[in-house]
């Protein structure tokens, strides 16, 4: 059984951006995990036995009561040996043991990962810069004198120099230099990543290795509480604190335990009154069967496994509270760039004006872009090559065929002719383009592309009269492209000294990642509103939002706007989740209820968020929400199951207790259990075995499909409510068939 609740693959990250470390879920960490293997159980056994210590167990009142019951029955079985008493004692111990086993197995999964991480924590030597604090802001720190100190003595604010081949001695920010770093020890991603000072890729993690160059790093976390330290504590579950909902559920379970304690304790007086005093053994058995042992036994395993599922997805939650809050998220803030769209504007279409063929325009646009190494420029070449293959044959409309040997710039395409002069983009002209040498048919051919107003100005400057009709048509094209969320790039050419003419418009567009609409539909089904945050203007932002299927959009957003939006939503009682990486995201990350920082981001962002995504994939927010929900659903489902079980147990045990004095109660023995002894023992055995049977479910989590609350409730009530009602009738009957064969019962 593999663990994979993901219904749709996360949108893959932008192509051509290997430095982000984003992308495919890596197989290294996500090894095919079986829900429960023998090896896991074996390795969990010692831990399970240790957890039987009442000083540990008392935190779970339900299981503590069972343990007390087990002790009592054991004493009774020793004082007055008997087959029945012996079996009851054995199975009560089994009940407690299965509970501790569940927890121990859940913890063991993190242990292996922790030991891998520990390997990165070897003591290293750091080269601490002497007097770095007195250093003026300008000037290089690279050449300052350094002293070698053990990494464990580094303090926050210390500055170290790390060169190629050295291990980073601690968490910090690069304050000078650029280097490629192997972070596979932490993220599992083998491709090296670039870390550089300034900007949003300055954070380095202790234990990772610098592969090239030298960097100066300012330490941001004291030794012993670095990211890796926290990661180890987290995956081991050693610092696990109960989450608010877990505490609330524990209160409900405790009160149910007290209710049943009362019901069973007062049953003895009633039994005495009715002339059928019950043995303590039977009362203890009844009590253990009634109290919600199933959920009580599995509650902490569910919590640990929930955190573990996040770790499987390379997300580190700094608190369990955040995981729970993720299930409650009402609003999801997603950055447009890199999350919803690929992040680079790409050419998607050429739109010629009247009197120009689309091929003519395509050729001109391609020529103007061949030497343009910006992503936009490359995308124009790609588009033309893909959609106007005839251009590759070198058919240059209105011009000489180019020399086919000059195909240096684009594979498969036709390159620029000799003597072509590149016109680079300048802030003054706001255009770029190319000047082709004069040919037989005409003079120098100048092609320009740029923003509509800039190109129009150039065209007019050449003496051309942009006619009202042409101008109107161009304006219409430009507006149409902008209105759909694209960026219009106007292309014009001038041959010789003749007036220039506008050829048409290339549509540049943010391309929405595949599958985003489906993901947002799922979110909507879960009752979560998605908000796209972008620096684009309103029109463009709305158009992309509509295309991606986002519910709302925050356009022309500054970091303050983002923070305000989060505050506004929270004032309305809504929980907000967001992903961010930059330093200016830090306030918003801190303010949001679930803030997922990208591992590639700055230390400030990682400190501010309450989760860190090692894959730096912002769409993972959606999975985090699902895991949070799954965690809560699993608790609710098993609670319902546990309580529903009690009805069958009453039918098994009560007639067994009182048939001797009230024979008419035999009609309540609907399961027709063999004897009073076998009935009680069967109920106890069922009660223990059901815990064992549900361990895999508690580790895996209840299956979750995004759906409306009503649909989820109906489904889970049917499975775990009705199932919980019926299952024990069958289970107890089956066990009774076997138990009744026991000799001496």
């Amino acid at each position, binding site marked *: 059984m593999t663990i994979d609740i993901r219904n749709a693959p996360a949108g893959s990250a932008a192509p051509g951006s290997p430095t982000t470390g984003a992308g495919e879920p890596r197989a290294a960490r996500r090894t095919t995990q079986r829900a429960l293997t023998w090896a896991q159980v074996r390795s969990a056994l010692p831990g399970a036995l240790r957890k039987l210590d009442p000083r540990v167990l008392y935190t779970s009142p339900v299981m503590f009561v069972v343990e007390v019951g087990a002790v009592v029955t054991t004493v009774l079985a020793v004082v007055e040996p008997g087959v029945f008493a012996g079996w009851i004692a054995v199975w009560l111990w089994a009940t407690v043991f299965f509970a501790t086993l569940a927890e121990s197995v859940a913890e063991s999964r993190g242990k292996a990962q922790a030991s891998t991480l520990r390997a990165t924590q070897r003591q290293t030597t750091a080269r601490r810069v002497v007097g770095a604090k007195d250093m003026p802001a300008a000037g290089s720190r690279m050449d300052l004198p350094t002293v070698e100190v053990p990494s464990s003595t580094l303090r926050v604010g210390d500055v170290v120099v790390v060169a190629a081949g050295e291990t980073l001695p601690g968490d910090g920010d690069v304050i000078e230099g650029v280097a490629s770093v192997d972070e596979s020890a932490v993220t599992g991603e083998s491709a090296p990543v670039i870390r550089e000072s300034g900007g949003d890729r300055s954070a380095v993690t202790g234990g990772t290795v610098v592969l090239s160059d030298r960097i100066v790093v300012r330490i941001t976390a004291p030794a012993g509480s670095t990211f890796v330290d926290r990661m180890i504590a987290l995956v081991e579950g050693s610092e696990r604190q109960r989450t608010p*909902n877990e505490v609330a*559920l524990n209160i*409900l379970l405790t009160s149910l335990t007290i209710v049943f304690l009362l019901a069973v304790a007062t049953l003895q007086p*009633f039994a005495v009154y009715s002339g059928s005093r019950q043995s303590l053994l039977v009362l203890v058995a009844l009590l253990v069967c009634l109290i919600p042992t199933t959920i009580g036994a599995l509650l902490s395993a569910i919590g640990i496994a929930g955190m573990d599922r996040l770790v499987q997805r390379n997300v580190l939650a700094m608190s369990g509270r955040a995981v729970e809050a993720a299930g409650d998220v*009402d609003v999801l803030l997603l950055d447009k760039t890199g999350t919803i769209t690929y992040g680079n504007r790409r050419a998607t279409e050429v739109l010629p004006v009247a009197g120009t063929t689309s091929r003519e325009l395509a050729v001109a646009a391609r020529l103007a872009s061949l030497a343009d190494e910006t992503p936009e420029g490359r995308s124009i070449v790609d588009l033309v090559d893909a959609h106007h293959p005839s251009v590759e044959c070198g058919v240059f409309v209105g011009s000489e065929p180019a020399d086919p040997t000059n195909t240096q710039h684009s594979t498969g395409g036709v390159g620029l002719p000799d003597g072509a002069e590149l016109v680079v983009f300048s802030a003054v002209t706001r255009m770029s383009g190319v000047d082709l040498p004069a040919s037989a048919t005409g003079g120098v051919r100048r092609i320009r592309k740029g923003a509509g107003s800039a190109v129009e100005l150039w065209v007019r400057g050449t003496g051309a009269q942009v006619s009202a009709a042409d101008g109107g048509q161009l304006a219409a094209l430009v507006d149409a492209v902008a209105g759909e969320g694209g960026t219009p790039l106007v292309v014009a050419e001038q041959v010789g000294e003749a007036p220039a003419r506008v050829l048409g418009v290339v549509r540049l567009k943010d391309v929405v990642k595949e599958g985003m609409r489906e993901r947002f539909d799922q979110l909507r089904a*879960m009752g979560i509103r998605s908000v796209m945050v972008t620096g684009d203007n309103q029109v463009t932002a709305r158009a992309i939002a509509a295309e991606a299927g986002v519910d709302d959009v925050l356009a022309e957003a500054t970091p303050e706007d983002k923070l305000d939006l989060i505050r506004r939503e929270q004032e309305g009682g*809504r929980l907000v989740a967001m992903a961010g990486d930059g330093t200016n995201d830090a306030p918003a990350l801190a303010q949001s209820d679930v803030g997922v920082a990208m591992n590639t981001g700055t230390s400030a962002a990682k400190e501010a968020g309450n989760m860190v995504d090692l894959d730096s994939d912002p769409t993972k927010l959606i999975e985090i929400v699902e895991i949070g929900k799954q965690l809560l659903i699993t608790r609710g489902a098993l*609670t*319902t199951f546990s309580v529903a079980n*009690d009805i069958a147990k009453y039918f098994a045990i009560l007639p067994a207790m009182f048939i001797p004095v009230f024979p008419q109660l035999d009609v309540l023995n609907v399961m027709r259990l063999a004897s009073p002894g076998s009935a009680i023992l069967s109920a106890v055995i069922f009660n223990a075995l059901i815990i064992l049977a549900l361990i895999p479910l508690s580790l895996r989590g209840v299956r979750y499909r995004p759906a409306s609350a009503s649909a989820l409730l109906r489904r889970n009530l049917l499975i775990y409510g009705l199932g919980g009602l019926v299952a024990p009738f069958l289970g107890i009957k089956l066990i009774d068939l076997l138990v009744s064969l026991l000799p001496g019962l």
Partner: protein
Amino acid sequence: MIGVLTAVLSPVVAAVAQILVLLVLLAAVHLPLGAYLARTYTSPNHLRVERLWYRAVRVDPDAEQRWTTYLMSLLGFSLVSVLFLYGLERLQAHLPWNLGLTGFDPAGAWNSAVSFTTNTNWQWYSGEAAAGHLLQMAGFAVQNFVSASVGMAVAIALVRGFARSGTDARIGNFWSDLTRGVVRVLLPLAAVAAVVLMASGVIQNLDPHTALRTVEGASQHVLGGPVASQEAIKDLGTNGGGFFNANSAHPLENPTPFTNLVEIFLLLLIPFSLPRTFGLMVGDRRQGWAILGVMAGLWAASLALTTWAEMAGPGAAPQAAGAAMEGKETRFGLAASALFAVSTTATSTGSVNSMHDSFTAPGGGMLLFNMLLGEVAPGGVGAGLYGMLVLAVVAVFVAGLMVGRTPEYLGKKIGRPEMTVVALYVLTVPALVLVGTAVSVVVEPGLAGVQDPGPHGLSEVLYAFASAANNNGSAFAGLTSGTPFYEVAQGLAMLAGRFIPIALVLALAGRLASQTTVPATSGTLPTHRPLFAGLLAAVTIVVVGLTFIPVLSLGPVVESLS
């Protein structure tokens, strides 16, 4: 008219017709009354008479109270009520209008003082033989009004908790709520009801009870008293303390099938209207419908089972007699007795028009179960609504988890503090009932009061404590409860069963009022749909069922299977 119908129609048709008439009346009245109640408790204006009263007792009715202050006011008021009533009872011999009756003994006075203050109205004494007109009117009748108004005030405070957002736990003003409940709701309704009852033959005078010698020479007691006025509030305020010992079985309290139906209508009237008030005050009428649906569904199911049990009459004695008429009035018959009995135990009334002790085993078991449910279907005035809302929080907690969100009800998150309060609430009354019953069936003074040995005796004691702790007040007559043991034990059960839950409910109200309301999304568990209503009904039955199945199986269940 109903008498005629009952005589003409077959018993089954008559039973159904009577229930239908009742349902139509309730359905018609609960909407305007629910709206009127909502207006009563939300209006910023005070009546002139109310202003006079506030000035006299020196309270500021506009000062919003935090839940702790609200609770302290309520407890203070109730303490004064208990002391005042205790004084009246003890000093009766020295006060006017005592009809020559003596004062109560200390244990009995304690029991009755607590009983009437807690809206239980358990009566260990016989009204006509122990209470004079002054005690009836200045003592018991006053408590009938104010204890009912206290219940409504607590319910309204809880509803405010749900309706408000982000206050510093302020949930209204106790004195204003108490006064308005009496002045604007209970007094006018009771006055109309009293007139209707008087017109239908219920007596209303200040005559003493007189002994006459009949023509045949036999002696007969002719009883007098302000019965109609007391009868009206007895039922309207789900109090239940009868003017006479026979309560609503007495021909001077409940002379005809018509008055019988009026009384049933009165005791269901406010409890079934409050869900509407709730819906209006939280700004979502559908929420009110859901609560009403659960209450009505449970009540109807209980009624169907009890009526079936009584009319089918299983058991040796009813079979031998031809019908389960023992302990029932012939002028009402089986169906009307079952209807009254179910309604009085499903509310916290406890008035009776028949002897519940003599019901068939399953029928009597149902009446017991109605009370064990916590009297939430529809429950006492106010107490029914807040009891049901607390159960709704439990249901929301489990169901909320199953939809993958931190549970929330009406936009309020149900976290650790809320669950703590709710868990204690759910524990309190069952603990009182179980411990009280368990102690009583093993100690000598407890066993001494048990008339019937065996399972029925257990049912009697269980019934007594279920009635006391849930503030019902009805009794299985077989138990002699007029002993110091039961008077003190039940007094404690009544007191704890009333004020511990109230304190917890007000704490919950304060906690909720200070929370910010979370807006609903499609991921929020809808709490107005039939699915949730069904779940709430199931939670109500299962929580109670699982707690009491052991003891019920040794009492009513064994009896029924005999």
